[in-house]
């Protein structure tokens, strides 16, 4: 009997609904990704092409989403802005994983004093609201696109380190690791062969959700003027520029925010789907009981 046949009706129905939502969300992200990569050929105008005869226009055939205060095409800037916003979210998560996973791994595997100190530092970092931590790191490194990516990455790093450590603590004492240890195999071999492969799954799910968090923090930084410098477009930066000429509901203010919200929604849905997929024994409801919606919450900064 297959695993899905053993599931009760409502659970299976919900699983199927989750799968459909997950597929739609994944499809959206794929289309978005392709459009982002093809921003050059797809965009009708350059991101900095100014037309002073067409300033702050509404939606039209020539400018689908209108123009901004410098007469630049919002649709084109949205496409180019996706490269910055999505690209920097990906880089930030790579930074967070690249630092967080090794730190958690070492802390969990070595244990004792190293673990105590590392955990204390991580707990302290987690006491900072994420956006404030990112702003502080920006203050240290200076503003700009690259430093914003690094700042967001470092701000999200403690979550990865904590999760990796928690996983390692469980796997470290499993019988097969003990068995391998009694063979006199070196520590690095145990880590590479047994600990990492058996600890990495929740980290993958966290990565999906943290991509959303990174997108949101980067947008917030750019909105505050601490991220991507003009004239380079980013979704948060576009909202910053539009907010200075706010005059009621206009596409300039609706479109970039909607782009962030829809992308974030799609990332969250795919993240939940991935979580259910990677651990088929646990239905999303009983998982939520054990972990208080922690993974989904992570995306909301």
């Amino acid at each position, binding site marked *: 009997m297959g695993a899905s046949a053993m599931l009760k009706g409502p659970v299976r129905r919900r699983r199927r609904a989750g799968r459909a939502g997950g597929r739609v969300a994944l499809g959206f992200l794929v289309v978005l990704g392709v459009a982002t990569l093809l921003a050059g050929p797809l965009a009708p105008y350059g991101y900095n092409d100014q037309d002073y005869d067409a300033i702050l226009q509404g939606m039209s055939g020539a400018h689908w989403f209108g123009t901004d205060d410098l007469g630049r095409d919002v649709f084109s800037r949205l496409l180019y802005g996706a490269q910055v916003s999505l690209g920097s979210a990906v880089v930030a998560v790579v930074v967070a994983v690249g630092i967080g996973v090794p730190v958690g791994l070492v802390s969990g595997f070595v244990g004792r004093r190293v673990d105590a100190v590392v955990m204390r*530092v991580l707990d302290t970092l987690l006491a*900072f609201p994420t956006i404030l931590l990112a702003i502080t790191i920006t203050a240290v490194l200076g503003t700009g696109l690259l430093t914003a990516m690094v700042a967001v990455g470092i701000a999200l790093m403690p979550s990865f380190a904590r999760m990796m450590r928690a996983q390692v603590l469980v796997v470290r004492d499993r019988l097969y690791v003990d068995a391998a240890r009694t063979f006199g195999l070196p520590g690095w071999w145990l880590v590479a062969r047994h600990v990492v492969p058996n600890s990495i799954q929740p980290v993958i799910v966290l990565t999906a959700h943290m991509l959303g968090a990174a997108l949101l923090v980067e947008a917030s930084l750019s909105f505050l003027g601490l991220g991507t410098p003009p004239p380079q477009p980013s979704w948060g930066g576009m909202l910053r520029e539009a907010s200075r000429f706010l005059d*009621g509901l206009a596409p300039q203010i609706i479109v970039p925010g909607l782009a962030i919200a829809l992308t974030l929604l799609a990332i969250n849905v795919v993240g939940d789907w991935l979580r259910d997929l990677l651990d088929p024994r646990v239905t999303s409801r009983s998982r939520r009981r054990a972990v208080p919606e922690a993974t989904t919450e992570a995306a909301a900064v």
Partner: protein
Amino acid sequence: MVTALRRKVVSVLLTLLFASAMVFLITYLVPGDPAVVVAGEQATPEQIALVRSELGLDDPIVEQYGRFMWGVLHGDLGTSLFTREPVVDIVARTLPRTMELVVAGLVVAIAAGIPLGIAAAMRARTATDGVIRAVSTAGLAIPNFWFGLILVSIFALEWAVLPATGFVSVFDDPVEGLAHQVLPALAIGLTAMAAIARQTRSAMIEVLSADFVRTQRAMGVPGRAIVWQHALKNASIPVVTIIGLDISRLIGGAVVVETVFGISGLGGALVSATTQRDFPVVQGVILVVVFLVVIVNLLIDVLYTWLDPRIQGV
């Protein structure tokens, strides 16, 4: 209970000690010479030397840290490098506004989130539940500053029923204060509301299927009393956890949303200090925020033991 609390307090003090050390080290993590960064590229050597001595960078690091901690413990967070204003004064001026917004956002989040979660749990897997779940899922994906911009566009600019910018404390003028704070509070509270609604829903669904609820129903206890008096208290622990996490998030949200509404709170101070690289202000603001977050979390741990006396080892 007392030993558990004592252990918790020691842990909190350690976190604060570590946080202050990290905040102190900020100036040391600056790539290159922090004095040059602060003084600017075109500064003369004399100006750089002046900044250096002002930041206290000439002294041994241990002495600097000692002086920093001595100041912190005596309510001295240094002075702004640009306005010469004591950082404590800047914090005293901006913090009350930000905290008022955070509390207003929290009120919105709890007042809307918990009833929504309960309503969804009581009608689980119906259309009502579906709508509430959709709203809360969307709420988690909407950036708070964008929601603030949309609210301003509609209520202040299109309909002109509420002010677009500025801040009035409800303690100075309750009517004006509410009018000024309702939009920022909605913007700040949206994400937390969505998180609380989701958590309340799943916790209530679980509790409502528990044996004691069935027993109470069988004994004829009215449904309303079961939900609001018995089930909610039992469902409240995960909800309180989420609220605790939300405090940190609400402060972060307020810092960004303030900009939308032109409120010069902690966020404005932090952002301009970051752009100017006014390190004493950045350090002071961040330290105060971390202190607040840690204290709130300690209070929440105390709240746990009150909600569920079985929890001892917090």
